[in-house]
């Protein structure tokens, strides 16, 4: 056993010194390899973090949202229906929600305006998302003009800039009072955008939804699970952009490994011949090549995964900004919650280390099986 360990240790020792004598070649190889691992690992970590972010966003979402429909389109919801729905067995509470979109021609950006259920600002004052603050330059205490439905300017004082955490959803948000919201859009009293319904038992949601539709056939109940699915597909769409990058990186890696696998230099073949002639077995040569490949690929894997982790979680995945900034002028600047998934790391390991190490061994195996007497000639 100790002999076996010593054999491995000795061969690793020689593999290291063998790699070091081609410093320039191996360092550039390691750099390219690490770069590819960084891209692949960043994609994996980023997609996963986005999904987790989406789940966190919807954690506090209502169990069900009920919208009124007219000709298949979303219409204003009479608040009075909330009292009827509140009377359905199993419903714990109903909240009328006021929210809408506002296009700012100056910044050419869309904002989401909402009236918060609790802790809403006083009339005349607003909270704004951090991306709006960045884009417009408004900060706490400034007066922000919004154009009303009549085209007049309404000045609202910024009393708070929303924290940058979870900016992916709060970036374009303006929170204002009910009075200001109704004045801005001429939103009729007694109507809301939709109703948020909470149930005592989530298993009863489907029954409650059926009862609501029965009572009000022109409504559409949307359950949290459906919203989760929608959000998931949105994030997956963003993820989908990244999957393209991911595919390109994997392709680059395959070309890289193929190039490595396509053959050995005359110098490397000569060395294998020497090793065999001085008493190395084919298995010893393959072990040496395995360790050479493993040293390069493991180093690239560890460096690449570490840099990708910092890139995604400490530098907000700056390489992927364009995929994130796809749909609006407002660019979220958020930090994803750091997380490591063992399953993902294992996949990454098998995607990078194993193919490269195999690609190193295969051409060596072809050379190592030559007769040792070839080096005598």
């Amino acid at each position, binding site marked *: 056993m100790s002999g076996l360990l*010593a054999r491995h240790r000795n061969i690793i020792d020689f593999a290291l010194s063998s790699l070091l004598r081609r410093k320039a070649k191996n360092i550039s190889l390691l750099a390219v390899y690490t770069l590819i691992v960084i891209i692949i690992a960043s994609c994996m970590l980023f997609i996963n973090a986005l999904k987790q972010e989406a789940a966190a966003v919807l954690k506090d979402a209502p169990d069900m949202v009920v919208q009124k429909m007219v000709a298949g389109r979303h219409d204003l919801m009479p608040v009075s229906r909330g009292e009827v729905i509140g009377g359905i067995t199993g419903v714990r509470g109903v909240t009328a929600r006021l929210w809408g979109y506002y296009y700012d021609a100056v910044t050419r950006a869309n904002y989401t305006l909402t009236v918060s259920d609790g802790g809403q600002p006083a009339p005349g004052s607003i909270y704004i998302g951090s991306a709006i603050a960045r884009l417009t330059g408004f900060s706490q205490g400034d007066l922000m003009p919004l154009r009303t439905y009549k085209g007049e300017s309404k000045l609202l004082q910024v009393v708070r800039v929303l924290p940058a955490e979870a900016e992916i959803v709060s970036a374009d948000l303006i929170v204002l009072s009910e009075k200001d919201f109704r004045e801005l859009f001429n939103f009729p009293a007694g109507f809301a955008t939709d109703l948020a319904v909470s149930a005592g038992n989530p298993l009863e949601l489907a029954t409650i939804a059926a009862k609501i539709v029965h009572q009000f056939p022109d409504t559409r109940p949307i359950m949290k699970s459906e919203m989760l699915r929608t959000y998931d597909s949105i994030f997956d769409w963003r993820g989908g952009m990244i999957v393209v990058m991911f595919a390109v990186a994997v392709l680059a890696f395959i070309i890289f490994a193929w190039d490595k696998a396509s053959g050995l230099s005359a110098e490397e073949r000569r060395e294998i011949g020497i090793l065999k002639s001085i008493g190395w077995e084919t298995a010893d040569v393959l072990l040496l090549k395995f360790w050479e490949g493993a040293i390069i690929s493991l180093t690239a894997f560890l460096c690449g995964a570490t840099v990708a982790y910092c890139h995604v979680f400490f530098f907000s995945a700056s390489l992927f900004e364009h995929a994130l900034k796809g749909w609006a002028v407002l660019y979220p600047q958020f930090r994803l919650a750091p997380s490591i998934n063992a399953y993902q790391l294992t996949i990454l390991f098998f995607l990078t280390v194993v193919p490269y190490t195999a690609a190193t061994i295969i051409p060596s195996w072809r050379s190592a099986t030559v007769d040792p007497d070839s080096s*005598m000639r």
Partner: protein
Amino acid sequence: MIELCAITKSFAVGLPYQLTAVRDVSLVIEQGQFVVIKGPSGSGKTTLLTLIGCMARPTSGRIMLRGLPHPGLPGSADSAEVEITSLPERFLTAIRRATFGFIFQHFNLVRGITVLENVMLPAYPTGEPYELFRSRALQLLELFSISRHAATPVDRLSGGETQRVAIARALINNPKVIIADEPTAHLDSGLSSEFMEILSTFQAQGKTVLIASHDPLVYESSIPDMVVQMRDGAITGITRQQ
């Protein structure tokens, strides 16, 4: 003892360009003998050495080793007689590693690594503790007065120093038989004589020395016990010296 019985080695057997490099060679080499195989280029000297050194298998005939180490063979003591021509590669390699030390015509050192690493190279896969074979390698470098070059890459050595590194490497696993193929082909007369002197000290230690050479400085030297003359793959004469 190494015994060759009717050894023939052909290449590209069955093809129109089949070549027979060694024909029906029978020879007995006693332990501790200094043997020179001489002959012109293409006479089969190198092929014969590769067959004896377990680097290749003969097309026909048998090679027997007696009183030489043959590790890994189940149920056989080192003193037992072993017929090596039919052994699988794994056993041939084990015997080659433990029994033979090779000095090649171009020395075949691995470029880019140090003198010390080159000398230790045959010992790496043996499973022996690193410190043990490292200290043995340093002793060998000391013996050949090249210890000051231990950390020097072999590419920077002179011809004589390269030769000594190659000899030190051949000795690292303490082999019973030293095989050298045209070792003086690239050396001047002074270095060639020095080389022969070094090899004669191994013989004095009980090692068998086998050299293939067409250099008169080697085969006309008074050191060899036996000179085997080869031509066209066959032995044409054997001279024994007292």
